[in-house]
C-alpha cells in the first residue's frame, strides 16, 4: 500500500475517460490495420475466385477461410475491408487536412484584415458552397480523370468553405477579445496574434467541424466511388464495397454490412474523440 502515502492524490489529468477509451482503441486499431494491411490481410484483396462467389462468412476453399464471406467476384470481403480502410482513412484524412488548413487560413485572414479581402473571400465561400459538390466533382474528374489524388482534390475544393466560415466567424469574435487587444498593445505582430492568440482559441470549434467532416468525407468518397468518379476498381474502398454490396443485400448481406459497420464505428469513434479533444483544449475542462 505504498501508493496511499501520498497525502493529496494527484488527479490523473491526462487520462482518457472510460467512455472514450474503447473508441480511441478502435481508431488506433483501424489505423494500424490500414497501415499494416499487407501483413494482416489473409488474402490478396483483388484475387478473384469465380468458384467462390457470394459465399457466406466462414466459407472455406483451397485451404483458405473467407471469415467475412466473399463478394460477387469471389474476393475475400475481410481482405478488401482491410485494404479499403487504407483508402477511406487516407482520402478522409488527406481531404480534411487540406481543406481544413486552407479554409482555416483563408477564413482567419478574411476576419483579420476585413475590407475587400474579407468581401472577396467570403463571396467565394458563398459561391463554392452554392455549387453542388457532385457537380463540381463530375466536372473536375472529367477534366483531370478519376484517381485517388483527384478525389482528395475534389473533396478539398468543395469542403474548405465550411472551415472558412467557422474560422471567419470565430476569428471575428475572438479578435475583439481584450486579450487579443492587449497583445497588440504589447507589440505582437499579426502572425503572432493569429497563431498564438487567435488560432488556439478557435481550434475547438474547428476540431468539431473537422471530425464531422471526417465522417462526411468517408461517406463522400463512398459516393464518388459509387458514381465511378472515385477510386477506380479493382482498388477496394468501403464506399465502393457498400455501393456494389447494395445490389446483393437480399442474397449476400455481408458484402454491404461489414463495410457499413466499419464506417459506422469509424465515424462514431472520430466524433467522440473530437468532442473529447475539444474539451481538453479548454484548460477549465481538464
Amino acid at each position, binding site marked *: 500500500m505504498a501508493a496511499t502515502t501520498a497525502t493529496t492524490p494527484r488527479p490523473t489529468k491526462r487520462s482518457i475517460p472510460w467512455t472514450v477509451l474503447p473508441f480511441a482503441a478502435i481508431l488506433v486499431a483501424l489505423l494500424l490495420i490500414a497501415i499494416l494491411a499487407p501483413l494482416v490481410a489473409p488474402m490478396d484483396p483483388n484475387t478473384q475466385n469465380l468458384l467462390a462467389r457470394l459465399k457466406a462468412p466462414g466459407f472455406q476453399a483451397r485451404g483458405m477461410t473467407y471469415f467475412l464471406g466473399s463478394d460477387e467476384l469471389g474476393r475475400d470481403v475481410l481482405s478488401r475491408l482491410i485494404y479499403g480502410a487504407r483508402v477511406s482513412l487516407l482520402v478522409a484524412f488527406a481531404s480534411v487536412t487540406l481543406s481544413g488548413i486552407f479554409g482555416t487560413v483563408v477564413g482567419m485572414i478574411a476576419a483579420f484584415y*476585413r475590407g475587400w479581402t474579407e468581401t472577396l473571400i467570403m463571396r467565394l465561400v458563398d459561391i463554392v458552397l452554392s455549387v453542388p459538390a457532385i457537380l463540381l466533382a463530375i466536372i473536375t474528374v472529367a477534366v483531370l480523370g478519376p484517381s485517388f489524388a483527384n478525389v482528395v482534390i475534389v473533396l478539398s475544393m468543395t469542403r474548405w468553405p465550411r472551415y472558412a466560415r467557422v474560422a471567419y466567424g470565430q476569428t471575428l469574435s475572438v479578435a475583439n477579445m*481584450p486579450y487579443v487587444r*492587449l*497583445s497588440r*498593445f*504589447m*507589440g*505582437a505582430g499579426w502572425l503572432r496574434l493569429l497563431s498564438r492568440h487567435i488560432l*488556439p482559441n478557435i481550434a475547438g470549434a474547428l476540431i468539431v467541424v473537422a471530425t464531422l467532416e471526417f465522417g462526411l468525407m468517408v461517406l463522400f468518397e463512398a459516393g464518388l466511388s459509387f458514381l465511378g468518379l472515385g477510386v477506380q476498381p479493382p482498388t477496394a474502398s468501403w464506399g465502393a464495397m457498400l455501393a456494389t454490396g447494395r445490389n446483393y443485400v437480399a442474397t449476400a448481406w455481408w458484402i454491404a454490412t461489414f463495410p457499413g459497420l466499419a464506417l459506422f464505428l469509424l465515424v462514431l469513434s472520430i466524433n467522440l474523440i473530437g468532442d473529447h479533444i475539444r474539451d481538453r483544449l479548454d*484548460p477549465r475542462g481538464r
Partner: protein
Amino acid sequence: MSHPLLSVDELRVTIGGQPVVDGISFDIAQGEILSLVGESGCGKSMTAFSVMGLLPRAARLSGGRVMLDGTELSALTETELQALRGNELAMIFQEPVASLNPLMKIGRQIEESLIVHRGLEGREARRAAIDMLAEVGIPEPEIRAGQYPFELSGGMCQRAMIAMALICRPRLLIADEPTTALDVTIQAQILDLMKKLRDETGTAILLITHDMGVVAEMADRVAVMYAGRVIETAPVDALFARQEHPYTRLLLKTIPRLDGEPKETLPVIEGLVPDIGQWPEGCRFSPRCPLANDACRKAVPPLASRRDIGSTACWHAEQVGAI
C-alpha cells in the same frame, strides 16, 4: 535642453468624420504620474489609443503630433511602432481577467514581450517572468506562472497584466481605468503597487480614471477633459486646493472629503454630456455651467496659462471660487 518624455500636441481623432478628441495637448515628464479625468465618452481612451498608435477601426487620427522623447510617433511605420509597443510604451486595461489569453499559462504570457522585443526565450525568459511576477507582489510566483488565468483572482490577473506591461521596462505606462473592475481593497493594493513601481523604475504613468479619489492618491498632475478637450490642468495639490474651471469645481465639490465616507466615482453634475457631433457653439460646458453667459456661448475659451502651474479654458476663471 530637456524635453518631456511624452508630448501630445493638438491631437485630433475623428469617428465617422465627427471629432471625439478635439485638439488635446499635454506633456508627461520622466517618472511623472499624469491623471486624465473626465466623464464617460469625453475621449480619454481615444487619446490613449492615439498615443499607442492603435486606434479602433472606426476612428481616425486627423491631426496633431505625439512625441515620445523627441521622436514623432505619428511619423513611424507600423513595424517601428510595434517595436515600441510593449517595450517603450505599454498599456493596461480595465478587464484584467478577459485581458489574459485563457489558453495560455500566465508565465508564457509575460514572456511574450521578452520574446517579441528582446529575442529572449527558454529558461532565461521564464526566470525573468517569474521575477516579474514576484515584483508585482504575486505570492508563489513559480506556481502562478504555470497556471491559467481562470485559476487566478481578478486582482491577481491585474497584477499579472501589470507584470506583462512592465517586463520590458517601458518608459511610459498607460493605465486605462486599471482598477474600475476590482473591489475597493484590491483597488488600493493595485494603486500602491503602481506607485511603488513608478518610484523604483521611474516609469511615467498616464492614469485614466473616473475616480477623483484615485486622482488624489496617485497623480502628480491632473488634466481634466470635457467633450474632447482638456479644460483644466494643474498639479494635483493646486487643483484640489483651488479649481479655476467650473466643471472641475463641480467635480470636486461633490466628493465627500476626509470623513471616511466611501469614495465616490465621478459625481453627478446637472445636465447631460453632449453627444459627439452635438457639441454647442462656444464653450462646450456652457449648457451645464452656472456661470455661463453670452460671451461663453459665442467663443471657445482658449486653454490659458494659470499662475505658471497649470492652465484653464474658461472665460470666467476668477469667479469660479464663488460656485
